[in-house]
């Protein structure tokens, strides 16, 4: 019998995963439970890898954020325990951090990573769109996001965090996902107009 092929998730782990996958009101709770459950990784990173408290926290919270994204999109299949899987992400991020530190790229010229959505665009236009995206003034965009109003801001942040229009409708108490879609696009348009005014 191969023990490694047995389901390895505990009830508690399964519960955390379910609350994140459902993407509804329970997701936030699930995210917090996930963060709290393995927060001792931070301590380990300080002792084992001699990281500063700040670096260790960043490393761990980036791990959790990345894990949440994967769980919410269904990429985590539960073939290993949640801890083993999280630790492999944590370790990969630690290696990335070391690489960044040795090549001196760490946060001096902070740019946002390539959007997965851009991968969808055909080769013919990818370079030109990427160049246009690179021209974005992120600071101004952030400032304008405050100006779109709290409701719009909240809706756009949920959308960017991977919530569907249906999930947003449930969370923000809109009647239907179609209403959310119209409002979301209106908010995006407002953000665009504000951004272009600069």
């Amino acid at each position: 019998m191969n023990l490694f092929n047995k389901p390895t998730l505990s009830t508690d782990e399964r519960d955390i995963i379910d609350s994140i996958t459902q993407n509804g009101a329970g997701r936030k709770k699930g995210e917090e439970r996930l963060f709290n459950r393995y927060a001792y990784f931070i301590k380990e990173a300080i002792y084992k890898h001699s990281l500063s408290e700040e670096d260790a926290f960043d490393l761990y919270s980036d791990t959790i954020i990345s894990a949440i994204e994967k769980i919410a999109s269904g990429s985590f299949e539960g073939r290993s325990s949640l801890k083993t899987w999280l630790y492999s992400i944590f370790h990969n991020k630690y290696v990335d951090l070391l690489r960044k530190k040795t090549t001196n790229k760490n946060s001096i010229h902070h740019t946002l990573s390539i959007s997965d959505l851009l991968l969808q665009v055909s080769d013919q236009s990818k370079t030109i769109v990427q160049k246009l995206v690179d021209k974005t003034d992120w600071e101004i965009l952030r400032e304008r996001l405050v100006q779109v109003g709290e409701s719009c801001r909240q809706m756009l942040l949920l959308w960017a965090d991977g919530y569907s229009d249906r999930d947003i409708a449930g969370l923000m108490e809109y009647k239907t996902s179609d209403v959310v879609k119209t409002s979301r696009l209106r908010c995006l348009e407002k953000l665009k107009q504000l951004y272009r005014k600069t």
Partner: protein
Amino acid sequence: MDNNLEYIDAYFQRMLEPEEIRRFEQKLAEDPEFAEEVAFYLAAKQGLKAEAEKEKKERFKQLLSQQAPVINIDRERNTKRIWMYRVSAAAAIVVCLLFAWYFFFSSSASPQQMADKYINDNFKDLGITMSARLDSIQTGLRLYNDGQYDSSLKMFETISQRDPKDYLPKKYAGIVCLRLGNYEKALQYFRAFENDDTLYSNPSLFYQAVTLLKRNQSGDKQQAKELLQRVVKGDLDGKESAEQWLKKL
């Protein structure tokens, strides 16, 4: 409201029909203003995502501050040091014993070890060529070599959907799935070009065998053995390794 945003949103939410996708991509290539709109949509989503993550980090920071102090470095380091010496000594003994066992008693590697070795030797980094035609493939390979397996898989899947007849994105998607431990999906991708007789050298059967040996579920070894026999018989890609493995299986 600007209809372009709705159109762009539909494209990125994969709501358009193939013909509409083609028209969208044509418009994107030919209309600079439309390209600006698309770039804004992507930039906004990217920026918003970063903002959402920042807020999440703040929330995590608060959670951490509510927990008991994470560290008490001075006291715990001394205790840890003593334990480290003990554990290191024990580990050294265990390693020596394992080496002794390996050299004196173990004459052959397990099927999983053989697959692991093959995967580490051949799939750790994938070669990037300088062909301009295969730009998306190159991007996928770069992402893979940078360890961004999920993005790399998305890339290969998108290319494969766009050009279902091309075996290359399927081969790479299968390799990414294999690295990710998603063996069922890896097998699906490798099987998808099993009967592609346009290929001078087709590694489908051999890769399926590697995946089965790595997965090592009940019946996998036998199935892998049959595949390897077909590789040898058909003089296919991976024949040399297949011959060696068959002696050990």
